[in-house]
């Protein structure tokens, strides 16, 4: 039962974090290249444009939820399990969500990279 609770918190954290990344990516693509925007309209205009975007705020909400899910998972399980599991699973779930929702071209090169990074992150915490 405790294990189920712990893995539920990890799953929630991974889903919320990946959803936050996908929403953030979508919002930033719609807003456009921030470097060009800043050169044309100035830094303040960029800040107002980004923080006035509803999708960006939704992404921040998801990331805040992910942070508190991580804290909860850390209070229920060992950091040596929670940290690598959440970090490496987030890489894979984000890739899957980016393919489904953002229609990104996740070719073999990107799958191999995501898998290498995912395994590498898990090994870093050993």
């Amino acid at each position, binding site marked *: 039962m405790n294990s189920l609770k712990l893995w539920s918190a990890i799953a929630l954290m991974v889903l919320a974090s990946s959803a936050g*990344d*996908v929403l*953030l*990516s979508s919002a*930033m*693509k719609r*807003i*456009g*290249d*921030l*470097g060009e925007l800043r050169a044309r309209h100035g830094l303040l205009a960029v800040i107002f444009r*980004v923080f006035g975007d509803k999708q960006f705020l939704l992404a921040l909400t998801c990331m805040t939820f992910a942070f508190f899910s991580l*804290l909860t998972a850390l*209070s229920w399980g060992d950091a040596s399990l929670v940290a690598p599991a959440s970090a490496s699973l987030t*890489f894979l779930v*984000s*890739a899957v969500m*980016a*393919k489904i929702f*953002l*229609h*990104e*071209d*996740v*070719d073999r*090169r*990107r799958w*191999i*990279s*995501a*898998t*290498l*990074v995912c*395994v*590498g*992150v*898990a*090994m*870093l915490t*050993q």
Partner: protein
Amino acid sequence: MNLRKYLVLLAVMCFGGAGDVLLKRGMKDFGPVDLHNLPHVVAALANPWVLLGIVCLTGFFASYLTALSWADLTYVLPATAMGYVIIAVLSKYFLQEQISQWRWAGILLISCGVGWVTRGPELTERAESKTLIEGKEQHELA
């Protein structure tokens, strides 16, 4: 990819890695946080290492947003994972932490993944963006 874009990715890696290590350095001075007394953690903001860490993490978030404004998420995530390597190296030399052989192997795998993905295109080519680029080129030619 031009030099400016590589610099933005480099900023994501460096600011993220340095921010985490500086936070860790500050929290080492501050001592363990009691989960039942979370508001106490606000006092950690008075620590200069923690403040410097927050400045770095703000830089990380700004450069991460910039990178996402012109590159795919599946490109930015692995490309910026080099930050984990920076954390490991800074932890060894700045915080004097031990790095096991497993961790060095993990660093090698992440470096391979980062090197592999950054050699590919950073953005999925879409019909509308292709038309826009072609239109721009024709306009410049005319």
